[in-house]
C-alpha cells in the first residue's frame, strides 16, 4: 500500500519555542491503518498529528525540518473538546456537518449527500435536525467526527477524542474507528487511553520528548494498559496481555 503520509527525520518547532516539539521522526502512514500515538503529556503526540496532516506549520506557524510528503488529497482533524470545533453558526446538526462540503462549492445535492453519508457512518442520522448546542458531549463529538468525514479525507487525525466523554460515549467513538479505516482511510489517534486504543489499533508508536521511543504492533507498544501493568508486576513474562481476557488466558490454573 502506498503511504498517504511519509515523514523522514522530520522535526518541528513551534513559533517562539526554545526547543523542538518533534525531532528525527520517521514514519509512514498508509490507508487502512489505525495508528495510535501515545506518550506522556508534552511528548509531542498532538504535534505529530498536526505535522502529519499538514496543519503544522501551515496554520499554526513554526518551523518544519526534515522531509515530509503528504500524498493524501485531504486530511481531517478532530480535537478533544467538541464545542470548540463547531462553527457556532449552524442551527442543525445536518448543516454543521454539511459545512465542510459546502465550503468547497460542491453542488447542493452533493453536499447534502455527503452529510447523509457521514451521519450514517457515525450512526447519528437521528440527530440531523437537532441543534448542536443541545447535544451531550458524546453526541457532539460524533457530530464533529462526522463533520470531518463529510469531506472524505484520506487521513483522519483525532487528538484524544474521548477525553471529555463518559465511558459509553467513549466506547462508541473508538468502536467507529476501525470501520473508517476499513473504508480505505488512514486513522491516526493520539491518546493516553491505552485500553481503548489497544482495542482498535493496528499499529502503535510511543513518543518521548518529541522522539519515537517505540514502534510496532500494539501488543508490544501499548503495554501500559492496566492489565499489562498488573500482569507485569505480578511476574508475567512478555508479551504482556493488553486486556483482561488476554490476562485471564495467560494464567495457568
Amino acid at each position: 500500500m502506498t503511504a498517504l503520509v511519509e515523514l523522514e527525520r522530520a522535526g518541528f518547532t513551534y513559533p517562539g519555542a526554545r526547543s523542538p516539539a518533534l525531532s528525527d521522526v520517521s514514519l509512514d502512514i498508509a490507508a487502512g491503518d489505525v495508528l495510535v500515538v501515545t506518550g506522556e503529556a508534552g511528548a509531542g503526540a498532538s504535534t505529530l498529528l498536526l505535522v502529519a496532516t499538514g496543519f503544522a506549520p501551515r496554520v499554526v506557524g513554526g518551523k518544519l525540518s526534515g522531509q515530509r510528503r503528504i500524498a493524501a488529497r485531504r486530511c481531517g482533524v478532530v480535537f478533544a473538546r467538541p464545542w470548540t470545533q463547531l462553527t457556532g453558526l449552524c442551527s442543525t446538526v445536518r448543516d454543521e456537518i454539511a459545512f465542510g462540503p459546502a465550503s468547497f462549492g460542491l453542488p447542493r445535492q452533493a453536499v447534502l449527500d455527503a452529510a447523509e453519508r457521514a451521519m450514517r457512518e457515525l450512526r447519528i442520522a437521528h440527530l440531523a435536525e437537532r441543534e448542536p448546542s443541545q447535544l451531550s458531549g458524546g453526541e457532539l463529538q460524533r457530530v464533529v467526527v462526522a463533520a470531518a468525514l463529510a469531506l472524505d479525507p484520506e487521513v483522519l487525525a483525532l487528538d484524544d477524542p474521548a477525553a471529555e466523554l463518559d465511558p459509553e460515549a467513549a466506547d462508541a467513538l473508538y468502536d467507529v474507528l476501525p470501520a473508517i479505516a476499513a473504508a480505505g482511510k488512514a486513522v491516526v489517534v493520539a491518546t493516553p487511553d491505552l485500553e481503548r486504543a489497544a482495542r482498535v489499533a493496528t499499529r502503535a508508536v510511543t513518543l518521548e520528548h518529541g522522539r519515537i521511543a517505540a514502534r510496532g504492533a500494539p501488543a508490544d507498544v501499548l503495554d501500559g494498559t492496566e492489565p499489562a501493568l498488573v500482569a507485569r508486576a505480578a511476574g508475567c513474562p512478555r508479551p504482556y496481555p493488553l486486556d483482561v481476557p488476554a490476562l485471564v488466558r495467560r494464567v495457568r490454573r
Partner: protein
Amino acid sequence: MIGCEVRVTAVRFAYGEREALRGIDLAVGAGERVALVGPNGAGKTTLTRLLVALRRPTAGRVTVGDWDVATKRPDEMARRVGYAFQHADQQLFARTVADDVAFGPRCLGRGRAGVASVLDELGLGGVADLHPYDVPAPARKLVALAGVLAMEPAVLILDEPTAGLDRVQRSRVVAALRRRADAGVTVLAVSHDLGFVAEAADRIVAMREGRVATDRPARELLYDREALAALGLRPPTTAQIGMALGLPGSPIRAHEVVDALRGTRWKEMPE
C-alpha cells in the same frame, strides 16, 4: 488538618420547570472518600454546586460542618471547601503557574508557603514559572487542581478530576487525594472513571434522575456487575480481573490485585 462532615437533607432543586434534584439525603463524614457516579443529567454536578453555595436548593438543607450553606456566599464557603471544576481554563489568569496557584491562598489571607510543595506533588515543579497557557491543556487541569489544594480546605469536591490526564498524572492526583484523606480531609469526587474511583474512593454514591440510586462501599459495588450495568457502567479493570480469576478479598486497587496474583504461574505465550 481536620475534615468536616457534609450533610444534605431532603434537598430538592429545579432549573425553572425542570427538577434536577428530587429529594437527596446524603451524609459524608469527615475524612471519608466518596465518589459520585451516574449517567449524564443525573444531577451530580448540580448537587456539588449546592454544597458551595453556587446555587440554593429549592427545598431542604445543606450543612458543611457547623455551617448552614444557605447563610453563606461562595467566597465564604471557600474557607472550608475547595471545588475543582471540570474545566480548568475558566479560572487560570496569573502571569505564572505559581502565581495562579497562590491566588486562592492569598484570597483567604494566607501566604504562599504551601504553593511550591503542592506544585511538586502534582509534578508541576518544572513549569512553575511558565504562563498557565504555555502549559499543555492536561497540565493546566493539574494547575487548577493545585490551586484548590493549596487552599488547604477541610472538604475537597472534584468534578471529573482525571478527564484527559495520562496515567502518570492520574496517579499523582490519586496520591494527592489519598494523602489528604489520610489527614482527615473529606473528599467527594464526581467521576466517570471507575479506575480512578477504585483507587481513590471507599464509598460510591450513584445518582440517577435526580435521586440517589445506590449508596454502597466501593469494594461491594464495583464487584456487582448488574448494579453497575443498571447505572450504565462497567466494572473497572481491577474488579474485572478479580471476578474473572475469583481473587479473594474483592481487590479493587491495582496493588491489591498484584498482591493477589503473586505466586501465579503464567503461560509463556498467549493462546
